[in-house]
Each structure stands twice: as C-alpha cells, then as structure tokens.
C-alpha cells in the first residue's frame, strides 16, 4: 500500500505501530529465553552474549516441560479423536434418522453452548472423587469430551443436514448397513467439517486450564498449561527466569508450526467458535 493521501499514511502508521505491539512481546520472549539470569536482570533490550541453550535443557528436563508437552499431546490427541467420532455418530443419527424426541436431544446438546464451565465444577469434582477418577486421565478425558459435545454436535449436525439423500440411498442399495454407510460414505465426505471440529477442539483442549487444574494433581500427569502455571510459581523463588522463558517458547512453538502448515484451516477452525456466542 503506497500512501496516496494523508489518510492512507495515518492508517499505515497505525498498522506499523500495532505490528510492533503484537510482535514486540513475542520477539522479546524468544530473545530473553536465550539469556543468562544476569543478562535478564540487565537491560531488556540487549541481545544475549551467547545463546543459552542450557535454559532449554533445564526447562525440558528439570522443570519437566518435556513431560508436560507429551502429556498434552496425549490428552489432546485422544480427546479430539474421541470427541469427533462420538459427536459425529450422534449428530448423524439425530439429523438423518429423526425419531420422536430426536429434536429435543439435539436442542439439549446445543443449549450446552450457553453454559459456562464454572457452573459444573463443584459437582464434577465431587463426582470424579466418588468414582475414583480424580487425578487421572480417565476422569479428565470424559470431561473434555462432555464439554466439547455441544459445539461439535452443533457443527456436525449442521453439516450432515446439508448432505444429499441420494448418497445414503445409493450405498444402501449397494448392500451397506446403516453403520457402514456412515463410516464409509458419510464421514469421508464430511472431511471439511470434521477438520474444522478437530482444529477447534484441539485449540480448546491444548490450551485448557481450569478443568485440568481441579482434576489433575500429580506432577507426572500435568498438561502444559497446568505445568507452566506451576513452573511460574516455583521459578519465582528459584529465580530461574531463563528456564521459564524457554518453557513458554516450547509451549508456543508447536502451535506456531501447526499454524504455518495449516493456516487456512486453523483460522477457519478458530473463528468458527465465535458462532458459540
């Protein structure tokens, strides 16, 4: 954009300024993650004299970030796969095989969109304790699935209801059972919606904090957000800022890489969530 008028020049100036506001903190984070503690206490504007990769080693091993990262990958991967399968099966039956009461079930799922998680926390904690599922992924993952169902069912039922009838009929004539039609025909043709659902739920669960906070207690089970929050408290006393900054970078990098490769889908998946309003 070449400034053709005063207005354009002003707009360009704002864009430049805001770019600095967005990038400044991120660049500062990365640069600081390579500094020694002494350098961090010096000026925030200087570059590290030598790249302190050791910060990353300490973050990964001593501060357990490596463990938290794998925990997050595991919990997120299992949760989002199950969410999409379970929600797709339910949404499919609800919109393609309507029966008396199917409408009410669909409405019940979708009204869950308006419910803030806080309203369920206390009884949920109590329920998991009674079932012996506190401090275990067997408790965390079903809860993640339950809280992701409203949006996922909403999204997928909307998509399924737009698919043409002929698709199923042709498959049935070919001798497929109802379940086979779903797995072999309907799910594959719904790839765009499934992709959106996967990405939306990935972001929600990868970044989820409060449910993990009330459910998980053991250090070896903690997910990244929980581990980072703990680390911040620990590092306040140990004053190992370098490792904490490195830990933050490790938490952000996977998202950054995913964003580079899947930019369009990620943008779509993330903004779809605004429909929740």
């Amino acid at each position, binding site marked *: 954009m070449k400034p053709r008028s005063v207005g354009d020049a002003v707009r360009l100036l704002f864009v430049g300024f*805001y770019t600095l506001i967005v990038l400044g903190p991120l660049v500062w984070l990365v640069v600081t993650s390579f500094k020694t503690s002494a350098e961090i206490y010096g000026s925030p504007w200087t570059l590290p004299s030598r790249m302190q990769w050791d910060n990353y080693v300490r973050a990964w091993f001593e501060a357990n970030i490596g463990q938290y990262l794998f925990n997050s990958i595991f919990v997120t991967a299992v949760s989002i796969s199950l969410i999409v399968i379970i929600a797709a099966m339910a949404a499919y039956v609800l919109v393609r095989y309507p029966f008396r009461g199917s409408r009410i079930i669909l409405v019940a799922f979708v009204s869950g969109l308006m419910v803030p998680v*806080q309203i369920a926390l206390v009884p949920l904690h109590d329920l998991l304790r009674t079932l012996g599922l506190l401090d275990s992924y067997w408790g965390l993952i079903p809860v993640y699935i339950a809280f992701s169902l409203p949006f996922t069912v909403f999204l997928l039922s909307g998509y399924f209801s737009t698919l043409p009838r002929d698709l199923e009929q042709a498959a049935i004539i070919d001798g497929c059972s109802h379940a086979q039609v779903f797995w072999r025909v309907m799910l594959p043709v719904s790839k765009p919606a499934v992709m959106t659902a996967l990405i939306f739920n990935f972001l929600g669960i990868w970044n989820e904090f409060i449910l993990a906070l009330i459910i998980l207690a053991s250090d070896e089970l903690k997910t990244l957000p929980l581990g980072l929050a703990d680390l*911040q408290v620990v590092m306040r006393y140990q004053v190992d800022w370098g490792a904490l900054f490195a830990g933050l970078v490790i938490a952000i990098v996977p998202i950054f890489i995913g964003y580079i490769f899947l930019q369009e889908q990620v943008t779509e998946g993330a903004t779809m969530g605004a429909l929740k309003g």
Partner: protein
Amino acid sequence: MKAVYRQIGFKAGFLAPAVGIFVVFFIYPILQTLHVSLYRWGGLSPDMDWVGLDNFRNLLFHDPIFWKAVSNNLFFLIVFPIITLVLSLFFASVFARRFRGSTLLSSVYFFPALISWVAISILWSFIYHPSIGILNSLLAGIGLEGLARTWLADPAVVLGAVAAPLIWRNVGFYMVMFVAAIRNIPPEYHESALIDGASRWTIFRHITLPLIWEVVSVAVVFMVVNAFLAFDLVWIMTQGGPSRHSEILTTYFYRKAFIEFQMGYATAMAVLLFIGVLTVSLLLRRFMQRETVEY
C-alpha cells in the same frame, strides 16, 4: 420387522456414547449445582446443612467482595469489548483492501489468539515485571519514567493492566472475522458510493458497517461472554490481588470452592454467574438486533 429392529439398534448404538457422557459429565453436574447451592457444605465430608436460599441472600446482601467482583467484571465487559471492537473494525477496514504484505500481516495479527491464556498471562506478567519487565524500561526509554510502576501490584492500574493482554490476544482474531465479512460485500456497493464522492468514513459508517452488522453483533456477544468468564488470565497474573482489586466472579468462585472449600456458597455464586452471563448476552442480542432494523 427385523430391519426395523436393526435400525433401532443402530440408532441407539450411535447415540449412546454421546448421550451417556453428556448426561453423566455435563447435565448431572449442572443440576447438582442447583441442589448444592441450597446447602452449607465443606465439600469433603458428606454432611450438608440445608440453608435454603441463605447462600444467595448472603452473596447479594452481605458480601462486599462479591460486589467488588461484580464491579470489576463490569469494567472488563465494558472496556474490553469497546476497545477490541474499535481496533479490530479499524484494522479490518484497512486489511479488507489487499495491499502488499496484507496476508502475512493479518496472519501475524491473528497468531496471539492461538496461544494459551496461561502462556499469555505469564508473558504479560513479565512485561509488567518491575525489575526485568519491558514496559517500565520502554517508558523510561521514551522519557516517561514518571509513568513506570509495579503494574500488577498497584490498585489504581491493575484492572487495566490485566485487561491489556485480553485485548492483545483478541484484536487480530476479530479483525480476521470482520475482514472475511467485508470481503463478502459485493464491490458494486462501494464503487457506486465512491462515484458519488462519499468519504471513506461515510462509506464505512453507512455501507460497510450495516452490511456486516450481523457478524459484528455476534462478535460483540462473544467478546462480552469471554470477558465475563475470563479466569486463567486473572488467576495467573494476580490471583485477584492486590487485596481484591482485580478479583472477578470466576476467581472469587474458584477461591471459595477449591481453596476455602465453601462449596455451597461457591455454587450459589456459579448459579448467579450463569444467570448474569445469560441475561447480558440475551439483552445484548436483543439490543443489537433492533439496531439492524434501522437500515
């Protein structure tokens, strides 16, 4: 007949996992919350004392911290949406006309929306940090040392300081939504207005904005609900401090429930929180819909 039974089995089998999990881990806890809110309950012991509506009465009439949290919440859900909306609409109007680098820049603006609140909260705690933080040193660098302070420990500025990352994370997100909406407007609308000699502000105010109003109103409701329910950010940056100056309903709820173990009192607060969110978003939607009719 056999086929009919098979279909029933198929339907039940496909519905069972979702309905089962939803009933056990979603519907049951919500209903249970309504129940627990009528008791005094320490959480761990099975003894629950029936107190009727006392929890609600105490919250509404005898708890100044609750009202402090409500007013902090109001600050959040007024200031954050207004600033975010103005900035994201402004940048959307700039980015809607492609220019060299606009695609790359808009992905940069969008990126913070993907980072977890926890990571953002820790990062911003460091930005505000009095000895290693970048903000005070930046202010000193441009000759404004006088403004430097311990941002997260100063009652006068702590709310604004906590709201800043909320804005930082969201402007690019809403900008991208608005850019998509603006690009859906048929170009003829703008062209004919330009021929008529309308200024860019006039075009934006009278053509662009009314045509994307639907998206804008959804976005505003979304922003307000998010501001209402923000938890991670406040909990990690200040835990509601200093001395409750950044306490909001979600952090106060968490403290009551899982630190002080006043489960009955906390669930009553959760019920009020739910009513609050629902009321605000319904009112807002009604209010903004009426706006649309004007055009």
